[in-house]
């Protein structure tokens, strides 16, 4: 417990170290989420258009 506490305190720099790592997680995850959502959106459109295609060829 004491070791964990000491680790989280970061030698008194906790309020600088943890926000830095938190932001790194936020920025990296944000990039991935935004990129993946854009992919899903286009993928959905593409699937919908492909599903329509056979009807068009009748």
């Amino acid at each position, binding site marked *: 417990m004491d070791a964990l506490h000491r680790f989280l305190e970061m030698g008194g720099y906790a309020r600088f*170290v943890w926000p830095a790592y938190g932001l*790194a997680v936020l920025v990296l995850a944000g990039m991935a989420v935004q990129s993946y959502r854009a992919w899903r959106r286009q993928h959905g459109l593409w699937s919908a258009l492909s599903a329509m295609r056979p009807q068009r060829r009748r």
Partner: protein
Amino acid sequence: MQRFANPGRFMRLSGRIMPWCAAGAAIGLAAGVYLALFVAPPDYQQGEAVRIMFVHVPAAWMASFVYAFMALASAAALIWRHPIADMAAQAAAPLGAGFTLLCLVTGSLWGEPMWGTWWVWDARLTSVLVLFFLYIGYIALVNGFDDPTRGARAGAVLALVGVVNLPIIKFSVDWWNTLHQPASVFRLGGPTIDRSMLLPLLIMAVAYMLYFAALLMLRMRTAILASRVRAARLGEVEAMPEPSGRAHVAGSVG
């Protein structure tokens, strides 16, 4: 270069490479963060605050690297007029902006306890802030045109002009007196930091790079898919019965 310029081939290749980059990035980030937080020793001057460096420095490297990549892609786009080069530049820009933002804020979080200030208008910090605005300006410019081709061309020119900022960032710590310390890894005569800190730093750098590569491919695949969706929709409009029978005119213009 030219081999990847075929959208179909790019889709096949990137589909195969992307998962490996993503897996490498995940492993690298896990190992890097573990080493950075638990294994690397506290610095004899900076104490535990040095751990900020493991997320800050690779972000700074990526900020410049991604811009150089964007500029190269833009040059290729202007010279060969290939849409994939434009897609690469446009896919990279938001990622570069993200790394630059991360670099600026984590630098600030380190600067307050170490320098006693969140921000100074010195050469290194200011030139990186300019880099951030270049990314934002590029994204705004590309999306500011009704015609995407014109937007891409304007963006490519801006990206190339902005390259002048890269050597300024790199050498700012040598050319001017700044609060920011000079290079300690990529310097003549080798790195000046201890292996116990250099190793996690390099692992994080590789992980960031793989992360960028994976997301870049995902975003370029999205752009290619989007262009296929656009083309398919256009085809649909053409396939609709037209009373005047001028369906082929629209096709010949596009």
